[in-house]
């Protein structure tokens, strides 16, 4: 009997420990005369060839053959790099914006904006959205499926000594015209800054998202350009990340109303 009681008590302790959640530190406030950090992401070298997937399920919706271009480079500039300004405790609200996936997929990452990111993953054409994106911990992510068939959403926290371990966070069917909501808690992420979305049924459906705490981020466009505005004066660290090419960091100091230009260069396929 006492063994049962002991086991039950240990179980309860684990449940209590597990239910704890860290408080989110960022606070939305008015930013008067904020600075802007802008720049370009340069890619030197030859990007890896797109991966071709054929023989996948549901060809009538997804197509018989799909390619996944993991590194998109236009005239030497990298699209899809995530640039994050780290260390901002108080500032602008999250922006309302959409990021469309690569054709022929029509998925998109929709940011509802406001006090949180309010990420909505609008799956369409066998596509969750663009290859790269961002998400915030604690804030629920809504997954929608506008396709006429099922996807199986599998999300991972990317960890391990060399980023080579994908730790399962969620694994669930996403049925047509259904919504599921999932939260990426810091406890589950375990210091991981990268989350991967994948579909167990369609191998080409994969996305990599960088975990951010604030709206001070940008994703480089077709011309490799990025811009982060309304930055309060101060000294920060600017991070540029790409899931295949790795991470670059730079220190940056901004003054009230200032304009700072910074470029990053990625040169080879890291992982």
């Amino acid at each position, binding site marked *: 009997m006492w063994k049962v009681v002991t086991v039950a008590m240990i179980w309860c302790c684990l449940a209590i420990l597990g239910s704890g959640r860290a408080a989110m530190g960022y606070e939305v406030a008015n930013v008067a005369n904020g600075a802007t950090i802008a720049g370009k992401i340069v890619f030197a070298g030859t990007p890896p060839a797109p991966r071709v997937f054929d023989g996948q399920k549901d060809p009538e919706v997804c197509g018989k053959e799909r390619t996944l271009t993991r590194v998109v480079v236009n005239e030497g500039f990298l699209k899809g790099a995530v640039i994050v300004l780290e260390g901002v405790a108080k500032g602008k609200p999250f922006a309302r914006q959409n990021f469309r996936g690569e054709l022929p997929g029509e998925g998109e990452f929709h940011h509802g904006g406001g006090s949180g990111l309010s990420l909505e993953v609008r799956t369409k054409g066998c596509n969750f959205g663009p290859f790269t994106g961002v998400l915030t911990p604690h804030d629920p992510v809504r997954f929608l499926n506008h396709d006429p068939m099922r996807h199986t959403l599998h999300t991972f926290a990317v960890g391990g000594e060399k980023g080579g371990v994908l730790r399962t966070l969620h694994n669930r069917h996403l049925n047509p015209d259904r919504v599921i909501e999932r939260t990426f808690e810091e406890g589950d992420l375990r210091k991981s800054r990268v989350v991967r979305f994948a579909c*167990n049924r369609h191998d080409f459906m994969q996305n990599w998202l960088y975990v951010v705490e604030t709206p001070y981020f940008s994703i480089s466009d077709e011309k490799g350009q990025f811009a982060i505005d309304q930055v309060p004066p101060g000294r920060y660290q600017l991070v540029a990340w790409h899931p295949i090419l790795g991470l670059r960091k730079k220190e940056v100091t901004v003054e009230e109303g200032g304009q700072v230009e910074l470029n990053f260069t990625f040169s080879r396929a890291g992982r």
Partner: protein
Amino acid sequence: MKGAELVRNSYFWKVYKRKFAVILLLGLPLSWNSSHAAVLDGMMGGVEESLEVRVSKKGEKLTVGNFYTAERPDAHAPIGVMGDHTHNEGEFMFSYRYMQMYMGHNQNGTTDLSVGDVLQQFMIAPTEMTTKMHMFSSMLGFNKTVTLMAMLPYVSKSMNHQTRSGQTFTTDAEGFGDIKLSSLWRLYAVSAPSIGTHRLVFNFGLSLPTGSITETDQTPMSPPESILPFPMQLGAGTVNILPGLLYGGETERISWGLQAVGDLPIGENKRGWAVGDSYFVNGWGAYRWTNWLSTSARLNWQWKANYDGRDPATNPNMIQTANPELQGGQRLNALGGINILFPEWMEVENRLAIEFGGPIYQYLNGPQLGLDWVLFAGYQFVK
């Protein structure tokens, strides 16, 4: 221990201990969350690190956690194996299984006995027995770790007999058997293209005494009807604990599994007897020929203890099947099977599976009817 004795002798414990077990069974999944899985993940940290190094040399990433992937015909074990797979959160599976078992000879140890041999010891000898079972079961992915399972069997049994005077007669019993409630816990899984997928699942369940243990039929010995002996009863009459552990693996074309399960009665039933403890080990391998077809081979080892107690209405000296000391034994069955995964229809995954086999070794605490063959067929749909 005085405190433990006080609790054990208390009215509450005597009356509610079985209910407590049910509450524990259902309560554990409710209290489970990802942090518990994280604790286990942490324990596997060293394994993960070495595997990460190994697979990264091949440009691969290692997937870990409590994930489960289906979408292949051999994602489920051969149909005769229960509790072999789990489901994703919110996923529901209904399955119907048909099982038929034929026992057509008597045996003591490994030696076959004639009916005459048996009649030298007992007034009546069973000559053959056929058991047919319709099993309705459902599984629900309760959360990302726990899958709940319920099984309701409908059983019909028929046994032929011969008396010393040469008279033959048949007894029959039919009805619902014992309901089984189980929880399957995804403990851990690792996967990478070069090492395949390996997963560990823990089972914990209870068998509830819903099957009759007072089946009667006409016999020449005590008309109009008398209580039938142990093998002809439909249930155990006791709450049984069903623990189990499963290791499963798969590569692109091949899958395999090893499962050990127990069936352990708590106390004795209201008729004053209890089935013996049973242990089963299943080991199987399957080859996936196409995206929809796989074939399997399975070895199934069964060990059963003799029964405890006896039914006061039966005479163990009259017939071997009423003797609690002649119920145990062990056998090794070899079975071959086929699994078919049909195309999805309206988001429903359909599976059909058949398995057939028989013993390649059996040692029975006889005289006892020996198994000749067993057939499983099942249809499963997953929504």
